């Protein structure tokens, strides 16, 4: 993926490209949400679409998330393939019924006789002082409930491939994109997320984790922004003689437990990095996945670096104190590479 002279895209542009390509080949695909037409989405991921496809297929909505998300469900059941934006994932509380009780369950309630081919894309993440109602990740909140696939890319290649796969999927897919990876300078973007993206359409299989970096001493499991923290920590740790394997989950539902377990089986050490809240979420699930496997011997107790169980503070110093970062990850890795499990 790092061939010289090949074009790199931001995640925002990769998402828009995937949508455009699917819209060209399938008239059923359309996009709707708040400020996604002329504005191109607050986070840039629908930029240019309205110019090519017009206001009918790239449709600004009123501020009525329950209305337009449940409308998307109805449209999807009627043969359309909506890609809908919930501007910030933090807003899920005003429309979660339409998501978890309707979108996610209608296939099941119908006994598999209807399909609900829709994508709900939504932004996650903090770090830029947008305070407690605009900075959350909520990965666990979506992944906990059945009937929806949940993906989140850490780079533009995966973003395009996952978006293409999501649009083509006949089941609902939650596509979570981290604001700090979008390639928008005003969000202090992570440059490593901008990678080579092939021009032709392709799919990244939903439900398969990637080994973002191979290593032998410790496994760091994460998703989206956390993957970059892990990779940065891994570089530092390498210089100290600690070999780090980084697993990029990419998909929370389905969860690729095999890849996680295989990695920890090899390294014997596990750290989970999760920008979502600490308890009852992703970090606990990954640790349980490893510990319940029954054939994995840990050389040290598993660790998690997650957002503490407190609302997200506005003040820069407070928020940064709580967020995962490469330093915290590296420190945890150093510690568990020193510690042994109790006899």
């Amino acid at each position, binding site marked *: 993926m790092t061939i010289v002279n090949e074009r790199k895209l931001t995640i925002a542009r990769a998402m828009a490209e995937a949508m455009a390509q699917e819209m060209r080949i399938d008239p*059923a695909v*359309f996009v709707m949400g708040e400020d996604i037409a002329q504005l191109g989405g607050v986070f840039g991921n629908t930029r240019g679409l309205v110019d090519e496809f017009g206001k*009918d*297929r790239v449709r600004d*909505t*009123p501020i*009525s*998330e*329950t*209305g*337009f*998300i*449940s*409308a*998307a*469900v*109805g*449209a*999807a*059941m*009627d*043969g*359309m393939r*909506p890609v809908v934006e919930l501007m910030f994932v933090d807003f899920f509380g005003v429309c979660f*019924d*339409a998501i978890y*009780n*309707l979108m996610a369950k*209608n*296939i*099941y*309630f*119908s*006994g*598999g*006789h*209807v*399909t*609900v*081919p829709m994508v709900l894309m939504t932004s996650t993440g903090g770090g830029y002082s947008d305070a407690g109602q605009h900075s959350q990740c909520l990965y666990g909140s979506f992944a906990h409930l*059945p*009937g929806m*696939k949940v993906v989140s890319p850490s780079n533009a290649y995966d973003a395009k491939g996952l978006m293409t796969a999501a649009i083509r*999927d*006949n*089941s609902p897919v939650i596509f979570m994109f981290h604001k700090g990876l979008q390639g928008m300078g005003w969000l202090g973007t992570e440059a490593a997320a901008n990678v080579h993206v092939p021009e032709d359409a392709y799919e990244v299989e939903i439900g398969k984790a990637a080994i973002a970096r191979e290593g032998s001493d410790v496994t760091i499991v994460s998703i989206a922004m956390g993957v970059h923290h892990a990779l940065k920590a891994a570089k530092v740790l390498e210089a100290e003689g600690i070999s780090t394997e980084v697993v990029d989950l990419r998909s929370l539902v389905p969860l690729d437990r095999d890849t996680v377990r295989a990695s920890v089986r090899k390294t014997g050490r596990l750290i989970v990095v999760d920008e979502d809240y600490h308890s009852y979420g992703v970090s606990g699930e990954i640790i349980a996945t490893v510990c319940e496997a029954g054939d994995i011997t840990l050389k040290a107790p598993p660790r998690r670096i997650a957002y503490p169980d407190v609302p997200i503070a506005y003040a820069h110093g407070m928020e940064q104190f709580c967020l995962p970062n490469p330093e915290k990850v590296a420190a945890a890795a150093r510690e568990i590479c020193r510690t042994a499990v109790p006899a």
Partner: protein
Amino acid sequence: MQPSKATLGWMYHNMVTSRKFETIIEKIYMEGKSPVFNMANGPIPGEMHLSNGQEPVAVGVCAHLKPEDIVTATHRPHHQAIAKGVDLNRMAAEIFGKATGLSGGRGGHMHLFDPAVNFACAGIIAQGMGPAVGAALSRKMQGKPGVAVAFIGEGAANQGAFHEAMNLAAVWKLPFICVIEDNAWGISVAKSAATPVKRNDVRAAAYGIPGHYVEGNDPWKIYDVAGQAIARARAGEGPTLIEVETYRLAGHFMGDAEGYRPKGEKDALFAKDPIPLMRKRLEADGTFTAAELTKMEAEAEVKVAAAIKFAREGAAPKPEDALTAVFA
């Protein structure tokens, strides 16, 4: 708009079918539930919301609909499902939780889905509003014919989802009709205690669309008003909000002691039971003879009995199939 003789016949037959269906479901629901009433027991477990008395709304609206049109219904969906032409055998089987049911037993009485006639329902108040609006949007975008009707209760008109969907339908001028069944009650909460306006049709003003209130649970009037709204929607002129006065002759759900009803209310409602009233009028104005009406009733009886037989005879689903059909 006046219903033709054929339409009136269909309406009466359909109302009777619905009532006979509810009547036998009511009876079977109690199997296994005495002496102790435990919802979990018997051939039909779970909650059961009967539609007795509300049949005129279903037939008055659905008489104008084709299979391609969309209907979303609520937790009280049987009359609408029957009027929309949902497969009665598989619907009954679903209510019995059988493998032969519409959803193989996964959905149950509050989750009846029949894509062949574009029918769906849901257990969350006002949840059907958005999907119906979205289906209407789909038709408009695809340039395909079809209107979408969402049936809700009068209690549901105070839910945010109602407002958002109405607004969306109006701003996008979609072929959508919201039909509110005003049976005067939420569960135990009276409309007057929950809604500051007497009639929800005034809420149409909030969306700049036509609003109508139909009094008296009258199949002819409902047919008329619904027909105009549906024609308007088909002509691309946008949505309509209709509220219909109707009567819930049963409890909110089975097991409801109905202690909240004022004394005498039930008797007064039974005196206005729309089925005998319709029969009387059809006979009195000479549309049908008594014998013709009796024949329709007998046909309904046969149809319902067959559905119940189909349901009873169906196999139970394999328990482990609970794990299937989560994703498409």
